[in-house]
């Protein structure tokens, strides 16, 4: 019994942490109107993860995650550089970065498979997520990284909200947009790279965007939106992990389906903003 419950408990704790922190950081992403950035960062991290596997021949998630973080940051920096130096629209740039890095990652995966460095389960873990493979050390790392993210958000709350709401005002108030945007990008990369183990590269952006979108329907302040998104994200992650455990399948798809269902419910029934809620109110 212990052998079954122990990994499940670890998975649920990890799911709760990742779901919560993704909800909070995803709220910033949604309010910053950079929902596609999450998708670009998670896909950009793939070559970093596979390259770490090739270079260090080490399956330790921490080592692979550092590789992923470096490439996630590289992808973000490249997107910013292209945006500053060309007249291309942001969604076009992110689409290019996403497919370029992911393509390079897939090429590297074929090299890993040919060299027989790692089996398919490791690759699948990063592509589609597998909460059941979490270890106590992973949970410890998640706790530390999440505490750092929440700490930075709390300390810089005033500056970050001002920039999200009205960047020109933040600039004229003396808050460097370069510094604030670098803080945001760093937090995005940290959150995405640690969340990949749960939902996988392909579906990570849903854990960032879906809880935040549902929370926006239910709150009228940034603090309340982050808190609500954290609760929704944790709930969807834990329940998704539980279902994935039961069905013996990757946790990413179940978490994504659940969080998307919560978005649909919120879009329809959220008080004051839900489509059906407002229609019923207008009839009464």
């Amino acid at each position, binding site marked *: 019994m212990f052998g079954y419950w122990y990994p499940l408990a670890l998975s649920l704790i990890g799911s709760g942490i990742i779901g919560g922190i993704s909800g909070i950081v995803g709220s910033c992403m949604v309010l910053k*109107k950079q929902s596609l950035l999450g998708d670009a960062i998670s896909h950009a991290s793939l070559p970093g993860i596979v390259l770490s596997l090739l270079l260090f021949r080490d399956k330790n998630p921490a080592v692979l995650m550092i590789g992923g973080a470096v490439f996630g940051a590289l992808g973000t920096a490249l997107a910013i550089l292209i945006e500053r130096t060309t007249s291309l629209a942001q969604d076009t740039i992110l689409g290019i970065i996403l497919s370029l890095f992911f393509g390079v990652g897939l090429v590297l995966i074929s090299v890993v498979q040919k060299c027989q460095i790692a089996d398919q389960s490791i690759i699948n873990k990063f592509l589609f997520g597998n909460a059941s493979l979490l270890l106590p050390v992973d949970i410890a790392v998640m706790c530390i990284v999440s505490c750092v993210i929440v700490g930075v958000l709390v300390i810089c709350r005033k500056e970050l909200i*001002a920039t999200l709401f*009205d960047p020109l005002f933040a*600039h*004229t*108030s003396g808050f460097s947009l370069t510094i604030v945007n670098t803080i945001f990008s760093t937090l995005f990369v940290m959150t995405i790279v640690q969340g990949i183990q749960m939902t996988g590269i392909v579906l990570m952006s849903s854990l960032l965007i879906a809880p935040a979108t549902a929370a926006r329907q239910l709150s*009228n*302040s940034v603090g*309340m939106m982050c808190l609500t998104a954290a609760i929704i994200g944790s709930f969807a992650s834990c329940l998704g992990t539980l279902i994935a455990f039961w069905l013996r399948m990757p946790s990413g798809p179940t978490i994504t389906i659940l969080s998307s269902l919560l978005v649909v419910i919120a879009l329809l029934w959220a008080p004051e903003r839900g489509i059906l809620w407002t229609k019923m109110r207008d009839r009464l």
Partner: protein
Amino acid sequence: MKALVINHLTVAYQSMPVLWNVSASIDQGVMMAVVGPNGAGKSTLLKALLGLVKPLSGTVEYFGKSRRTPGTIAYVPQRSSIDWDFPIQVRDVVLMGSYARLGWFSRPGSAERARAEELIDMIGLTAVADHQIGELSGGQQQRVFLARALMQQSPLLLLDEPFNGIDETTERIMLTLLHNEREKGTTIIAVHHDLATVQQSFDWAMVLNHSVVGCGPISHVFTSSVIQAAFGSSHHPTLFK
């Protein structure tokens, strides 16, 4: 000391000059309308003063200093530049006006909160202070942004089309507050579209059409020859009857 001294300012977007060799000297404590035809560079001038666009050449002196320090300028943006669905309450928007003085990491305290409540009362929005800004009418939203700017207690206040599409009550409240600020010595510069109301609401004017056609007290600048030079001969002939 002058509030602003603009020396040969030239600003271009992708090598197309929008402002060309703009020079002006603006006294402290005046309320100045920036008028000109569409595309004359009025909003670009405000952006250049705020440091949001980099000029190709020229300099600006703010109260005798070549550098603008945080809190020197308060800015009321155009309504269209704001995301009205953003989850933020009226009270918090006004409180943002204290951020420039507080600097990084410091939080607004009881003094800032009391001042914010006082300003919300002055703009007549105490009853909706905890509402999300998108729930307010266009005029009420404009008042909130004026209150945020007044919260900054800056010596220079820039407004981009503040009276565009607002109700009479809002216009009256805003003009009263702006005139009070001018009495306290604040220099107010507003991009303004309605030539018919310039003389009754402002005491200075800058007539702009890529370069300065005229700048100074209304009685000197707001003449038919200057307006016709900027807008063309057929524009508003009734203004000067």
